[in-house]
């Protein structure tokens, strides 16, 4: 019974696979795969990435290049099962020379195992897991890891005169790195971590944690959360009249944080690689295109990272043209140097990690503004 059904299902899939290939225009067309969650719990991020990628592609097409680029989007639902199937699908398609994505580190790493075996360059805009780029020489990322951000924040807090700090973060691979990288540096500087706890993403009630933090009376709280949890945390801090200064990472940088938390977000400090009120022309062009395309407010940091990731890929393609193969594209990606993106200049080091400049920011009068201290 099993194989009969199996053959049936495969037969129909086969019939699809043999459909006529697209007609080639005179200009060569290169295909890039993009795996991202377009449905499911993390769809809001994937949809942002898709919008950002389409803006980048649109601008590229208008720039009059000697070749065309097409992006194939596939929905992974942030599910490993689907992610590895997409990876196989991209690898099978000989016209796909490079891949962007996935959103979560877990799905990115599982897919990376397949890209490693097949020799396909993979550039994730958000996979921050320390092991991701260690999978093979084919993996790149366009997100500053906590190995860079954590120590920077530790120095900032220490320089602000804080000596006793409470640390909380979400219980994910990323949250783990937020805490370890910050705590190691802060202790090395001579500071003291008086409280440390992880919470599950989407926690509705932070009040028990806030009460415990307040009891330990730290000088500041360092937090590893995304904007949804961040807004909840800040609102409940206010409800409990806890006024300890809050510091966070670039992951909580999103206009939605201020929309959700309102005045309670005032004063939160964070590090970021992208500020939409940066007057640089490329940033303002992106922000304007984003507003026109999505009808939303300013883009957050993640869509900006996706926009840059697509542009880094396109720039590498341009350098590899006309001899574009998966291998030559990988080599050109690795050669990315001082790429002027909206999230700062990007250079890949020998381990294919991006070095980016982080700026210090604070919520003031309902917007994120750059600050010195």
């Amino acid at each position, binding site marked *: *019974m*099993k*194989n*009969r*059904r*199996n*053959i049936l*299902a*495969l*037969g*129909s*899939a*086969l019939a*699809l*696979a043999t459909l006529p290939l697209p007609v080639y225009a005179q200009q060569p067309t290169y295909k890039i795969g993009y795996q991202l969650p*377009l*449905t499911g719990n993390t769809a809001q991020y994937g949809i942002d990435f898709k919008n950002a990628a389409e803006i980048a592609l649109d601008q590229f097409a208008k720039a009059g290049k000697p070749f065309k680029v097409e992006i194939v989007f*596939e*929905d992974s639902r*942030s599910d*490993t*099962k*689907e992610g*590895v*199937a997409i*990876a*196989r*699908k991209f*690898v*099978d398609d000989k016209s796909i020379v490079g891949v962007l994505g996935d959103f*979560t580190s*877990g799905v990115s*790493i*599982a897919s*990376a*195992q*397949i890209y490693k*075996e*097949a020799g396909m360059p993979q550039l994730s805009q958000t996979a921050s*897991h*320390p*092991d991701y780029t260690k*999978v093979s020489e084919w993996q790149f990322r366009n997100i500053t890891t906590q190995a860079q951000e954590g120590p920077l924040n530790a120095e900032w807090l220490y320089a602000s005169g804080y000596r006793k700090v409470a640390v909380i973060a979400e*219980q*994910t*691979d990323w*949250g*783990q790195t937020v805490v370890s990288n910050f705590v190691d540096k802060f202790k090395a500087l001579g500071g003291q971590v008086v409280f440390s706890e*992880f919470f*599950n993403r989407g926690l509705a009630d932070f009040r028990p944690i806030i009460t415990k933090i307040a009891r330990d009376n730290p000088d500041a709280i360092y937090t590893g959360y995304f904007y949804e949890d961040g807004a909840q945390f800040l609102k409940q801090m206010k409800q409990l009249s806890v006024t300890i200064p809050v510091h966070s990472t670039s992951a909580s940088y999103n206009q939605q944080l201020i929309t959700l938390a309102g005045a309670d977000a005032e004063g939160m400090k964070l590090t970021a690689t992208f500020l939409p009120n940066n007057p640089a022309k490329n940033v303002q062009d992106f922000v304007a295109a984003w507003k026109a395309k999505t009808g939303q407010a300013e883009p957050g940091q993640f869509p900006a990272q996706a926009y840059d990731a697509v542009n880094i890929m396109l720039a590498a393609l341009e350098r590899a043209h006309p001899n574009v193969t998966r291998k030559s594209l990988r080599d050109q990606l690795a050669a990315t140097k001082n790429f002027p993106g909206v999230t700062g200049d990007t250079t890949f080091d020998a381990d294919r990690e991006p070095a980016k400049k982080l700026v210090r920011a604070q919520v003031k009068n309902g917007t994120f503004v750059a600050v010195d201290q």
Partner: protein
Amino acid sequence: MNASDTSHHRWLWTGIILTGLFVLVPLLLSLAGRSYFYQIANTIMIFALLAASMHLVTGVAGLLQLGHAAFYGIGGYCAALLATHFKLSFVVTIPLAGMMAGLIAFLVAVPTMRLVSIYFAVATLGIGQMLHVITLNWVPVTKGPNGILLFGGMKVFDIDFSKPVPAYYLVAVIVAACIYVIHCLSHSYYGNALRALREDDQCADAMGINTPRLKLESFTVSGFFAGVAGALWAHTAGYISPADFNFNVSILILSMVVLGGLGSLPGSILGAIILIGLPEVLREFKAGDFRNIIIGIVLFGVILFQPRGLIGEVSALDFIRNQFGLGRKAKNDANKTDGKQMRVGWL
């Protein structure tokens, strides 16, 4: 139908199934020349084993199990940890992972085996969540949300089992063997005793069937096979994290069993083929965001119009008894006892 007819059918059907699994499907997949189909075939087989293992507890014994992903996860973590920390070959880690999952299933079954219906379901739900939270928060051992990356690959005698074709055969052989064992268990005197337990456990008890022991055994065996499936997933994916074994997976497996037909082994396998295959087929059709809605409609439609599942238990049992003669043999065995009480179970 006489006995020789049955045995003839039996070899014919076994031959057809094995030829299909080991010759026809790989041949078709190779002709398509796309490793994507191999990947989907592997995922389908692993979930077919998961659905078959849950079929034993939920379909045959009638115990609603809401924490099956936990045993799948134990198998996955056990295999991944043994392979990365102790550098054991995958050949060894797969049975060990199954045994570990079986052992833990046994331990959790001891306090829960006297529970019935919804109380049992809630207990397994709790256990499933507990084990998930442990894998998420026991960072020194499981590396928590960071997951475990298996760098070693799967090499035995110079055959790299991480390549699509050898991986397919590896998974196919193990899954076929496991499903054969589940088939023998559920289509035997033993399986019938489990069905009696499902229909009316007090009546079964009164007839001399040791119901707690049966529950314990079926739960342990089911846990063992879920663990084997977890080990297969860990080795073929090369990376696992707690997100692969969360509550949604338990529900997915349960949906497979219900969609195919509670109590029907071919149904469970068909359920796995549909619920893993359909999203991918729809991906080929560029169904986009409608994929999930279509799958929901299929599930809803089946429950509405075919409440006994696509291959109901009665038709599945008739088919297996007529073509494989297993149930018939059990019936004959039962007649031979001449009214003496037959011992059920092997503990």
